[in-house]
């Protein structure tokens, strides 16, 4: 009888420890929802920018192109913008594995950006620095692969 009681106490103690461990476990942190919109306004509000893959869907590890469309806040296409491209993975502290460039001004405020590659799955930022007579401004897009 006595040993049964001891077992019972031990079991209760074990369960109590497990319960405390369960409570102490940090809650599964939900990542804040990323804004993955492909239409965004630049930081200072000068331009409305939208991006779309040029052709097929984006695949991890493959070089591909994007079409970037730039309009003024009033919706007028900006056809004389100078655009530089940057980006990286904020969670991993590294930049883009390639150096993408605007290779063609397609007219009507549309530009082709070539040489983009996402070398792994996860959250990537694609940043554009845009200059035109209307001024200089920046925009960041979030992409999740």
């Amino acid at each position, binding site marked *: 009888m006595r040993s049964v009681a001891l077992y019972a106490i031990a079991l209760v103690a*074990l*369960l109590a420890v*497990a319960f405390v461990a369960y409570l102490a476990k940090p809650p599964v942190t939900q990542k804040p929802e990323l804004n993955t919109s492909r239409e965004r306004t630049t930081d200072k509000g000068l331009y409305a920018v939208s991006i779309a893959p040029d052709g097929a869907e984006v695949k*991890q*590890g493959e*070089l591909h192109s994007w079409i970037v469309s730039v309009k003024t806040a009033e919706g007028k296409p900006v056809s004389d913008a100078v655009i530089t491209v940057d980006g990286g993975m904020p969670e*991993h*502290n*590294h*930049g*883009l*594995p*390639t*150096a*993408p*460039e605007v290779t063609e001004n397609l007219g009507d405020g549309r530009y082709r950006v*070539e*040489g983009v*590659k996402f*070398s*792994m*799955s996860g959250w990537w930022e694609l940043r554009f620095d845009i200059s035109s007579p209307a001024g200089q401004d920046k925009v960041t897009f979030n992409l999740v692969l």
Partner: protein
Amino acid sequence: MLVLTGCGGESFTDDEKAIIASLSLSALPPLPPDPTNRYADDPAAAALGATLFFDSRMSPSGTVSCSTCHLIDRQFQDDLPLAKGVATGNRRTMPLAGVAWSPWLFWDGRRDSLWAQALTPLEDLREHAGTRAFYAHFIADSFAERYERIFGALPDLSGVPGHAGPFGTAAEQAAWAGLPAERQDEVNRVFANIGKAIAAFERSIVPEETRFDRFAAALTAGREPDDDATLTPEEIAGLKLFIGKATCSTCHTGPRLTDDSFHNTGVPPVDGLPEDLGRETGVDQVAADPFNCFGKYADSGPEACGELRFMVKDDPRLTRAFKPPSLRGAASRSPYMHSGQIETLEAVVDHYARAPASVSGETELHPLTLSERERQQLIAFLKTLTN
């Protein structure tokens, strides 16, 4: 006990399952075409390439072939900290499984195609120590018929010295400089074709299925893994660390367990070796290589040269950055790192946990607390990637 086992982690989240599937061999895309090498998938070229790969006459000393360092029964590497041709080099021999999927070759990506890579050791004074004139003569003397069936007529080499090339001894360099541009071009073309044949052979060296791949396939299909596809609780814990807390899969990603990019991980230099800045030097070398994608010996137009055209050139991140090697087979492939700096997997894991500062440039690593048990779990997982 039951409670503890239940927390052991034999179940995976959907995110973890997706990452595991992305690391498995079934996620490997088909062998990519190499538009710079029109003989890449020509069986006769691959057969000639295989012959040349194992032929030690591919060095003037008659002692060094590609297989001297790339040993067929050792994952096409040599288990040495530094490669040994006619002399000792300053880098570790890389294994070859899956090499045809790599956009950049060598630890520093100083070549941009498999055929351009294959040419480099042939003229390295520490490796084969030959010259391109020597190789052109060797092909004409020993393999003329096989060569011409694939590549067309050999040039007339009667005016070409036996030993002449841009990287040889002073005398060999002088002999090369003395050749008219057309003769140089003809020799270069034979030389490039040798690389294309060897590359055609190397395209057949592909990664093998491992226990991890069988486990991943079962997990993806939602079925119980068979005997030869089972991972132990320790290996599963290691896998979770690999894709989670230890962040190994940040760079060791995809089915080849590499992101094909370049990273400074603070690996210390080796005393007595020349300074090795890794990718910082590699970008200049690949840009200057006459056999690169933009060069006249590539069989493609510039549209095939996206990697070279859009490569990162001026960036502090390139200093002492090296390519993450595939981890397939790595557990039985000591020593580790670009110059064999680290002897054991235990010491490798310890390096990543400590994250020492780089002697120049900046390490991408952050210090990580890993218990002794977690280290053993990671190593146990790495062994599931090795047959």
